[in-house]
């Protein structure tokens, strides 16, 4: 804010002081929001880390299970049952965390032929074990995708909040404080000017009275 534009009036000083107070309150709120977002970010990142570690071992286990199923039941049987599985859909909903809209994924695993009843009765045990493992991995993958996306959004919001709070803390508040200081100085100077002028007028009036007497 160029200091030339500032009107050195008492009302402007009151307004500037109000703005400083508001900026400080906003800064506190932004800092609180940033801390909450950081806490949320770390909570999600901790769970993602755990999930990723599990995913790596579960994926290895799932691949080994499907290979074992291929050995035990044969490729033909495995492919026959794989043909029966239907496509699954993932719907994206939004939830609000501290004003940030983060995605919430819901799975819909449509089972046409490959129902639980069919799996129990007609699917070989080894292939059923493989299906079970891959279902687990699939759920984990969707969960990780959801959480990593949330983390990305949170990170973006943390960055935005940080920039805003920095701008308020390092730019807006010092500028307003400087403006207030300048207005106060100008007002003081005007007061001193007025005081001196009044003194001079008073002295002149006194001198004039003395000469008249």
């Amino acid at each position, binding site marked *: 804010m160029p200091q030339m534009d500032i009107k050195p009036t008492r009302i402007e000083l009151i307004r500037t002081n109000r703005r400083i107070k508001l900026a400080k309150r906003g800064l506190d709120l932004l800092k609180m929001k940033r801390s909450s977002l950081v806490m949320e970010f770390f909570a999600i990142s901790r769970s993602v880390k755990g999930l990723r570690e599990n995913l790596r071992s579960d994926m290895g286990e799932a691949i*080994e*299970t499907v*290979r*074992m*199923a*291929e*050995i*035990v039941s*044969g*490729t*033909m*049987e495995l*492919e*026959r049952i794989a*043909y*029966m599985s239907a496509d699954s859909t993932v719907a994206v909903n939004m939830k609000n965390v501290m004003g940030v809209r983060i995605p919430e994924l819901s799975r819909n695993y449509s089972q046409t*032929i490959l*129902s*639980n*009843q*069919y*799996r*129990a*009765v*007609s*699917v070989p*045990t*080894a292939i*059923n*074990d493989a299906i*079970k493992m891959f279902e687990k991995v699939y759920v984990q993958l969707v969960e990780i995708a959801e959480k990593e996306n949330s983390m990305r959004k949170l990170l973006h919001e943390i960055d935005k909040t940080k920039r805003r709070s920095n701008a308020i803390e390092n730019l807006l508040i010092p500028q307003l404080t400087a403006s207030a200081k300048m207005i106060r100085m100008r007002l003081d100077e005007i007061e001193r000017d007025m005081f001196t002028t009044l003194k001079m007028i008073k002295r002149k009036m006194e001198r004039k009275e003395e000469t008249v007497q």
Partner: protein
Amino acid sequence: MDPTYTGSYGRIKAYGTDFLSEDSIKRLLGAKNPDEIATELFSTFYRTDMEQFSAVYKGIDLINMALNHRLIVRNRIALFAAPVPGRDVIRAYLAKWDITNIKSVISSKYLGYGVKETESFLLSFRDVPIGIFGGNLTKDDYNVLLSQSNIDSIVNYLSNFGYGQQLLLNMDRYRKTGDVSIFMSALDTYYYAKLIESVKFYNGDEGPLRRYISEEIDLRNIMVVLKAIDLGIEFERIREGLIQMGSIDLSRLQDLFSSGGIEKAIEKLSSFGNLGIDPKNYQENRRLESLENSIKTSMYRRYLDIFNSQALSVGSTFAFILRSELERERVRSISLGKYYSITEENIKALIF
């Protein structure tokens, strides 16, 4: 002693020398990759099978083709070696290949796959070829089945072979629900019913074979119950899928289901007789397949000894079929296990 089995026994014994020894299996297990296994197999009687396919196939595919070819040859030997009274049961047993393939044809038709897709999936598959000798359906029959426009016409065509009659009984239910799994269960039930029916007491020593088939049904039923517990579905939903020709009746299976959890069900299973359950592997990897494998291993061990000791009976022919299936499974497990870099411990758990 029935003299009609003398020739059969002699022929089976003569071909019985062709099986791989335990040392050969150990050498295969010690191989680093499928190529080493192929080299090792080339020095055995598999050489003739491998030579037939070596121009087209290599590595793991060559091993699979050789194993499948040898199985077909051995099934043919078993079917021709058996005298007329024992041929029915062997034919009924080998019909399991037909059942597997019919299931594939029905599934692919249901899912709307075209002839071309299904054909490549079925006919040129590297696994056991369809129309396997000993089954009732030939390659031409499968071509006709694949060209049918819908499931109804498939079922109609199959009624010429007996499978269709069983399927026709379930046609109304399929039309109402649109669920083909009804046919799959019906085919399994039909297969076991025919198998049990074909084991006639001709010699009087067919008891072990009947018991073996009953135990195979028991194993299937137990695994259905355990899977249902694991998947959290009600007993009523699997009741129809249970085959009631085993030695464990429906009420005991229901009792097993009501155990509440797999661990408790496994504990209960120990009171069901000599099933040879080893829950150790299941406790480690939580896979029901390892439990099934332990029961299967115990069954094979017990019944192979019994069948082998039945010199002049269909049991000896059956021992030959089981040994050939077992050898195929073992070599296949080792070669695929090495191909997929599966740990030696897991391969050993698979090869009985």
